[in-house]
């Protein structure tokens, strides 16, 4: 088998399987054969991630983490899954039954729908839409509604507060998220995710042409990742589910399998935004060095995805939770100006063809506003070692 065959093995096997299907059912069978692997692969990744996350967080805090089920606790996800499946499904008496039931379903469906436009490997995308990026954000906006439905229908003050926080946070951070990804659209000239990956193809002396290796691309990637963390409600932006204040946020009244569905939806959303970050800035399924192209494209995609997931876990183990005003201030006073300036930087990069000129100019255009903004955010705040009157 040549490397190319290994790379295309899923595509080839799909066509081989389609050969056995009568011509009338071919479109349907093709869709099913594209969708089912996605429906299997990402929940499996979710299962692995929960174990990785718990073990990683444990090690960060000098603990063992789960180590009882299976070798080194690796099958903990199976135990968790069985537990959540067999638990009693409690619905509050005052809850809006229909909406309460629909909310987790809508969340998971919206999270799964986003995977339709993400290229997992070469020629491996469920639907190559012309407006793929727009589709991704359209589907992502449905998550907000699901979150609101969950919080409102539970008829509990904690879940309502959590839902309001989550919706406010998601709306605020959707603006920088979209603006940070628009620089890539400007550079590649297309909204199609496949075309964006193709625009980053090619190598200069073994180094790839990824957008992250440009000043605006790097800044865009960092801003995108911050916004993605906030969008997926992960620490340090996990106010909607801040345990110390509102217990579990919008899904507090859910139990058993519906709770597991919320968990799944949240992680699927995180994977989807990470995968979009890979597609937009990290060259999608492309290999990082030209001499490593023999490794199949989907392997590279999942390696990058796992790297970003590990980074998310690392961040979660490091940073404390923000306050609500800090969160909103971050979105509107730092992220929004930075993303808007980044748009300008990308335009300058496009219109300065001379690499000797455009590198310093664009780097300055990114670094100077960052320094100024971070100085201004710190203004009036004296940071000092905190003294405690009673606890010591």
């Amino acid at each position, binding site marked *: 088998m040549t490397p190319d065959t290994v790379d295309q093995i899923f595509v080839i096997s799909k066509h081989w399987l389609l050969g056995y299907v009568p011509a009338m059912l071919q479109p349907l069978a093709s869709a099913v054969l594209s969708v089912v692997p996605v429906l299997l692969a990402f929940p499996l990744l979710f299962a692995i991630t929960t174990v990785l996350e718990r073990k990683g967080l444990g090690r960060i805090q000098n603990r063992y983490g789960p180590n009882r089920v299976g070798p080194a606790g690796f099958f903990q996800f199976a135990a968790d899954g069985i537990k959540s499946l067999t638990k009693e499904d409690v619905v509050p008496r005052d809850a809006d039954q229909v*909406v309460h039931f629909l909310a987790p379903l809508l969340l998971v469906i919206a999270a799964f729908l986003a995977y339709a436009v993400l290229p997992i490997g070469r020629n491996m995308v469920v639907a190559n*839409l*012309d*407006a793929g990026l*727009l*589709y991704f*954000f*359209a*589907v*992502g*906006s*449905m998550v*907000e*509604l699901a979150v*609101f*439905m969950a919080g*409102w229908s539970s008829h509990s003050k904690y879940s*309502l507060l959590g839902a*309001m926080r989550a*919706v406010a946070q998601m*709306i605020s951070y*959707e603006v920088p998220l979209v603006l940070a990804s628009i620089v890539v659209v400007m550079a590649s*000239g*297309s*909204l199609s995710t496949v075309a964006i990956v193709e625009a980053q193809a090619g190598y200069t002396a073994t180094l790839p042409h990824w957008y992250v290796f440009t000043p605006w691309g790097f800044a865009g990637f960092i801003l995108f990742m911050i916004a993605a963390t906030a969008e997926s409600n992960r620490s340090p932006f996990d106010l909607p589910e801040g345990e110390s204040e509102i217990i579990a946020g919008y899904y507090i009244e859910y139990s058993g399998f519906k709770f597991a569905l919320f968990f799944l939806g949240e992680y699927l959303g995180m994977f989807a935004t990470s995968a979009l970050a890979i597609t937009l800035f990290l060259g999608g399924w492309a290999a990082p060095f030209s001499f490593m192209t023999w490794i199949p494209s989907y392997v590279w995609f999942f390696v990058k995805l796992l790297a970003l997931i590990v980074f998310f876990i690392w961040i979660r183990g490091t940073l404390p939770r923000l306050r609500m005003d800090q969160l909103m201030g971050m979105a509107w006073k730092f992220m929004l100006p930075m993303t808007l300036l980044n748009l300008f930087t990308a335009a300058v990069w496009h219109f300065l063809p001379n690499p000797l000129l455009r590198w310093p100019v664009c780097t300055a255009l990114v670094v100077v506003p960052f320094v100024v903004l971070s100085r201004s955010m710190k203004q009036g705040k004296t940071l000092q070692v905190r003294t405690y009157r009673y606890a010591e």
Partner: protein
Amino acid sequence: MTLIFLILAAITIVGTAAAMSFRNPIHCILGLTVGLVGLAMLFLHLGAQFVGFTQIIVYVGAVAILAVFAIMMTQGGRRLTETATKPQITPSLLVGGTVAGAVFAVLGWAMLGRPSTAIHSVQPVVSVNQIGQLLMHNYVLPLEIMAVLLTAALIGAVILAMPQERGKR
């Protein structure tokens, strides 16, 4: 008149009718979302991909959430706002229903009475690129006006919704 059209039309009609008839305003918004998603699907079915996705982003992601926030800020925890009694036929209901029905009857009569002749049955291919080109060339003035309008709306909405300072009045 394909099956897909009928299904999508049914979703749209049921959703919007629910939005206008439920008593709980939050249910109304959820019904509206269903109806508008159905409408967006109709746009996609008609080949207008960009418009369909924009419809979902704007209506599901922004307008519905905005309306929900407005309801939560004006009614708080109260669930039923309009009369909790059974719906009854009032003169206003009769008049409103008659007006709406009359409008529908007139529009329907106009459409069915004069079947349109020129039917372009080939699905037009429209790329986002084309839309962008048009926006930046033929429609650049409307685009700028829209930008000004959106800015004005943003500032206006903020000023309207901002709590007035104490002692100013």
